[in-house]
């Protein structure tokens, strides 16, 4: 990201017109437009970007959602859908000339089918509420983003959210069967089916992670899994990051798919230990957590193999969780990584690149060099199992220029991820945050394909415009400012 955009002032005449149009079918309590009422919606989890929406609509029925969409479509008013607003890439950042469509009142678990192991839920249902509701049946919903206490399933689908168990259990896209969506024309379409596949194109895949640019999600049918009978975790300490990386490769090469595999560098373990007292060594270069789950017999055998493999990879210390309390304590540290970063620094900026696992040592070394270049500290937590790296850049927004430096640091980390064969976002989405980095990851013809896909669903470009996919003009502008390794990114494009 670059400098944060100026807030767009709301056009009051336009606001009156839209409020009147919505008021024709929505109760007064479902329309907000006074400054103090809409102010709480000005940002999502990416607080560096703020924009007060022109109008907030809080529908309660599918019919109301469709009518809002039809109204906006007819008047060419852009619409930004919002769930719990916990997203980290600004995907739910409002538009000053748009309607913010909050799905917060859609909180009903519509149906649980115990036998078929599915749940039909409204988009505003919290991720963890699904697992809580089906826990008595011995079932759970697998994707567990760190915000699972607060984030909503509709937002999870929009972002294709992950969590710490992705390597074994997949992301949101692997764990849903069916969606009810509303198009920008206000038409309801069902995508996917109650079976394991559906006729035609895999629109379920296309919509998952589409960041609210293609449709509004009205209902989600999720798959539920049998809760594993047992789980154990190995905690290991390494005096060398490379060795920790090698340990990850060695466990996987041995044919083991751990249910969780996490790495933290020294800066992260120190922050976490001060904050959560998880029992991590703070004098080592890296701490690794490796969990296996399954039947008691399976776990008993596998955890011993994991411990042997990690020790043979050069760990200076390993410890297997003796009981559930210790297992949870080992995890408590990792799960507290973000708040721990918040405790040691006035602000932190969480990055979300993915890299091929084997390059982790090299990438972390280069990040250390970048810390010196930008004069900022960075703590690294790494979903080692699936290669998803979360560098937490520590900064102070009150220091002039520090946010800009942080953003430049972050963008360089993302380019580093691309250089080693990775991606700019593993699970947080592009939103407004990484829109320039999309110009680095994709070529113009690929970006054009994305725009054509958008057009296939939303010809007028009214759903969450300006997010996720940059215009070619924007990339040309970005490329002009950003000459990478002496090469222009889009030499064949006209400059604007």
């Amino acid at each position, binding site marked *: 990201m670059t400098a944060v955009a100026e807030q767009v002032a709301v056009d009051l005449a336009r606001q009156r017109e839209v409020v009147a149009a919505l008021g024709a079918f929505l109760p007064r309590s479902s329309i907000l437009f006074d400054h103090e009422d809409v102010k709480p919606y000005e940002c999502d989890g990416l607080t560096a970007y703020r924009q007060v929406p022109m109008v907030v609509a809080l529908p309660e029925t599918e019919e109301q959602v469709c009518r809002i969409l039809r109204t906006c479509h007819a008047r060419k008013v852009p619409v930004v859908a919002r769930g719990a607003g916990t997203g980290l890439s600004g995907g739910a950042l409002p538009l000053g000339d748009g309607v913010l469509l909050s799905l917060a009142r859609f909180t009903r678990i519509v149906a649980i089918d115990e036998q078929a192991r599915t749940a039909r839920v409204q988009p505003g249902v919290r991720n963890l509420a699904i697992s809580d509701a089906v826990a008595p049946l011995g079932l759970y919903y697998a994707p567990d983003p760190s915000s699972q206490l607060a984030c909503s399933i509709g937002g999870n689908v929009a972002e294709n959210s992950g969590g710490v168990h992705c390597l074994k259990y997949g992301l949101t896209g692997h764990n849903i069967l069916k969606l009810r969506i509303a198009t920008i024309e206000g038409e309801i379409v069902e995508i996917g089916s109650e*079976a394991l596949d559906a006729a035609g194109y895999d629109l379920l895949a296309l919509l998952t992670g*589409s960041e609210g640019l293609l449709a509004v999600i009205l209902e989600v049918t999720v798959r539920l899994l049998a809760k594993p009978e047992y789980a154990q975790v190995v905690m290991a300490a390494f005096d060398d990051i490379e060795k920790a990386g090698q340990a990850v490769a060695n466990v996987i090469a041995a044919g083991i798919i751990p249910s969780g595999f996490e790495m933290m560098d020294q800066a992260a373990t120190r922050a976490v230990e001060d904050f959560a007292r998880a029992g991590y060594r703070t004098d080592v270069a890296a701490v690794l957590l490796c969990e296996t789950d399954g039947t008691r017999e399976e776990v008993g055998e596998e955890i011993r193999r994991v411990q042997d493999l990690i020790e043979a990879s050069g760990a200076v210390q390993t410890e297997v969780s003796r009981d559930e309390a210790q297992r949870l304590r080992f995890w408590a540290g990792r799960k507290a990584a973000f708040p721990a970063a918040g405790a040691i620094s006035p602000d932190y900026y969480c990055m979300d690149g993915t890299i091929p696992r084997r390059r982790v040592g090299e990438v972390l070394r280069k990040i250390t060099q970048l810390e010196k270049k930008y004069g900022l500290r960075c703590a690294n937590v790494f979903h080692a199992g699936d290669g998803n790296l979360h560098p937490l850049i520590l900064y102070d927004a009150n220091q002039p220029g520090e946010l800009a430096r942080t953003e430049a640091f972050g963008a360089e980390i993302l380019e580093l991820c691309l250089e080693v064969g990775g991606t700019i976002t593993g699970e947080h989405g592009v939103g407004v945050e990484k829109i320039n980095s999309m110009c680095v*990851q994709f070529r113009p013809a690929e970006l054009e*394909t994305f725009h054509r896909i958008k057009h296939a669903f939303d010809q007028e470009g009214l759903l969450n415009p300006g997010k996720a996919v940059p215009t070619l003009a924007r990339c040309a502008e970005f490329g002009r400012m950003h000459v990478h390794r002496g090469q222009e990114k889009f030499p064949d494009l006209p400059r604007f």
Partner: protein
Amino acid sequence: MDDVVDNLSRLIREAAKQRRPLCIRGGGTKDFYGGAIHGYKLNTGDYRGIVAYEPTELVITARAGTPLLEVEAALREHGQMLAFEPPHFGSGTTFGGCVAAGLSGPRRPYAGAVRDFVLGVRILDGKGDDLKFGGQVMKNVAGYDVSRLMAGALGTLGVLLEVSLKVLPLPAFESTLLLKRKVADAILLMNQWAARPLPITATAYRDGTLAVRLSGARVAVDAAMKRVGGDAAAPAEAERFWAGLRDQTDPFFTGVAPLWRLSVKSTTAPLDLSGAQLIEWGGALRWLKSGADAKTIRDAAARAGGHATLFRGGDSSQGVFHPLPPALMTLHRNLKQAFDPSGILNPGRLYPEL
């Protein structure tokens, strides 16, 4: 290999200019599947070879024309596999064809389908543009998920050049159990097992026998065998049985009656349709050999929350794939237009409108 891509791209550009349909073909082992084939053959079989395979990353990238057998052999050498167990309808089956057809084998309900393992693609779209989406890493949410959209699109949105798939370790041990059950009990049992933490990796039911495959660590399989019950099948026989279902070489799939594939909600009661049935996927897949009319079969599948495909043989005048509601078909047509504006890539293979 660049020259092969250049040539394919040139052929597509020329065909687009003349609006002349192209029929994309790898090994040609699935010519029987989908709508009628017509058009100039665009052979992808020459674009072959494994591009990258790093076992510790659990990812393989191969060119579309690579024989599937070659990919699977390379994986086996490192103790890994394609966990969705793709069918081979002949030795010439290609890697690209396996992804384009989007078909998965017995392990599908327990491990995931082809689309769940697709990480990235390189394609030529209907304008001949060489495009890359996704990548070689497990988690990637940059841009729309075009890669997975390609799985099962039967080449109608683009010519696959390269695909990166997630791979998984081969199980250390496997055992298949056979239980005598009535069909309704078998369906119930398969669904009950799925709700418990058992290492089941395949289930099938036919003529009073329910077969269950367990995979994983020896201790886990042994413990699960006690819980599931039944009699253990001889390992070689079990392997032949599952391969026979996967590749449809099992005697059930022979004969002249049209073969229907009904994908339904797993708890669906035995379907009241004429003809022989074989149940797979924990109850979610029903194979039907039947001369019943398409409407009767499709209505039954729709009532069961799913859809029916005329998989092989029969009269395809009522369409091969389940008809789509108008609003959904509009989205399909718009997407086809987005990827293939001249409508030259495998037209009619999926739906007459596409």
